[in-house]
């Protein structure tokens, strides 16, 4: 079952009221189990909308999403249990401590207190946050907040983890800790779907990449395949520029 499909999307479209063009336009693709699937694209390409639809936050206008063989919108509640999400925003309560935040989210998942204590301690150790457990989030640096934000999405050991720009705006040290940690959990069996503007980071981190623009996937493949597919490109950044004809912010 190494390379079986965990997410299968067929003819998926999603439009916002008042917008003439769909944010996601008739997409069909699959994501293999245990993949680190990078979803790249310029601003407004439709990455966040696609992730929101894949997580069940928005209903698609048309198309189907199958996760582990089950229709997402028919089995939304049960499928949410195997999905973890790390939103782009620091989705934490700033006046609560790191531990209080994680205990809250863990309890909402229905996890036991003993399990949560062990999990929190383990995550804090791996993300080098042992001394910050009982500090309020509003006293943390951007990198520390991002690390806690990731832990909050992983408390229930999800099979699939969606990461929306998990390393945006943080220092190299925090970035390395996060990428190493995510690589570790992927090795333990978690499929990762990751969006980013940071093409170089995606090239190193992802095992498979899809480049989106105007709601469509314009190219996909393993990073090395993508680079070889286009002439005069030595890295993924040049591929990206060729495909999107836009500057990277």
């Amino acid at each position, binding site marked *: 079952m190494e390379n079986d499909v965990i997410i299968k999307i067929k003819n998926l479209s999603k439009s*916002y*009221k008042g917008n003439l063009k769909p944010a996601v336009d008739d997409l069909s693709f699959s994501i293999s189990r245990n993949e680190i699937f990078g979803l790249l694209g310029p601003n407004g390409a439709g990455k966040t909308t696609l992730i929101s639809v894949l*997580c*069940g*936050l*928005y*209903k698609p206008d048309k198309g189907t999403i199958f996760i582990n063989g089950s229709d997402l919108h028919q089995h939304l*509640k*049960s499928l*949410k*249990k195997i*999905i973890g*999400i790390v*939103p*782009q*925003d*620091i*989705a*934490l*309560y*700033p*006046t*609560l401590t790191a531990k*209080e935040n994680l*205990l*809250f*989210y863990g*309890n*909402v*998942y*229905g996890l036991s207190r003993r399990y949560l204590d062990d999990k929190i301690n383990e995550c804090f150790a791996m993300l080098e946050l042992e001394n910050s457990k009982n500090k309020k989030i509003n006293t943390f640096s951007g990198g520390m907040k991002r690390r806690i934000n990731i832990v*909050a*999405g992983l408390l229930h050991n999800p099979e699939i983890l969606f990461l929306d720009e998990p390393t945006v705006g943080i220092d190299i040290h925090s970035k390395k800790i996060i990428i190493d940690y995510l690589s570790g959990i992927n090795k333990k069996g978690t499929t990762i779907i990751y969006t980013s503007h940071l093409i170089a980071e995606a090239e190193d981190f992802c095992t498979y990449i899809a480049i989106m623009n105007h709601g469509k996937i314009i190219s996909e493949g393993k990073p090395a395949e993508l680079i070889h597919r286009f002439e005069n490109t030595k890295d993924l950044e040049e591929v990206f520029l060729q495909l999107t004809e836009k500057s990277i912010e």
Partner: protein
Amino acid sequence: MKAFFASIKKEVLVLLRDRAGLGILFVMPLALVIIMALVQDGPYQNFQKSEFPLIFVDNDKDTVGSVIEKNIRDAKIFRISKEFNGLPATEQVAKEAVSQGKFKAGVVVPAGLSKYLRKNARIIVAKTFSGRPVSEETLFKKPPDSMKIKYFLDPLTSFSFKNTIVYILEKSSSSLISQTITNKYYEHFENFYPVENKINFDSCRIIDIQEIDASSIYNANVVFNSVQHNVPAWTMFAIFFIFLPLAGSIIKERDYGTYIRLKFMPKSFSTVIAGKIILYTVVGCVQFIMMLMVGKYLLPAIGLPALVIGNSYLAISVIVLSASLAATAFGVLIGTFFSTHQQMVTFGSISVIILAAIGGIFVPIYIMSKTMAAVSKYSPLEWGLNAFNEIFLHNGNFFNIYIDALKLLLFSFAAFLLSLLYNKYKRIN
């Protein structure tokens, strides 16, 4: 249940660490009740005690003048003065004093009015015994302007105040006329045979009136004063201001992104929102208890009357819970519909002020116009206030307030339903 209790615990922690929110919920309402009760204590007392200054000009200096002065004094709502700025009261001086707002009213009894009354009474009696036919028109001439009792009022005085003055003057005139004519009849009959019992028929209360103190039927010794109005009224206002921290916390959840994370979670989002609803409903109840304590113990300590709360604790609990739930539902609705803090604060605050104004929080409904009194029936603040008044002033029980409680619960249900539908609509669109 774990998610539900976790949500309550999280809300408690967030609220306890939000000093501004705590201030809005607990300090501001207390300040509001104390200040409003103190500010309105004067006007309420004025309405009930003899505080209205009245300038009295007695040019008659005879029976009519002294009877009118006595009747005005006996009304016990006027403070009579016969001079202004060291000058003895004349018609001109009185007019000037009232126009300057120094007196609420002026009354002028013209010179010679008692003599004019006695003369006309004698003529009326003579005419009735003259043997010639008389009618009401020929019995006496209408008095000239110089013989009319005059009164003038400060334009700021109320209609009921004017009615009180007119009533006293009318009552005094009727009594004087009947008594003077009766005396003239006695004098006429004494020409033929002695009248042994000269009775003042005015004192014969063949038809009498009796005031029954409504409070003796309901709550003993309850007077509708500043405290009885302001404590429940501003408590309702404060409870509805729960919307501010509550809707603020919903908008903050969206701003922080925690809302999105919670929406992705397997537990029903309404379970998590229920934590907010429970906490803020409890906050509303705590606010009420605090306000009650202020009304019962703090306000009397600063010279105001103590709040009387009636005897039905069941009715009080039902209405406090219903009102708190309605306020919480309103907060959830506002927090759901508005996407920015500024929109929420502006719309929410103005809405609560409008609902309070039409709901009789600022001024009691009985002094509103008919139209506004009818409109007030649609304000949830009026439902709560009406129920509190029923319990506090009329010693009402559950059966006297359950309709108001039901209205508040229906309002809550409608607001929650709208919020839920709007959330679903947003998910689809």
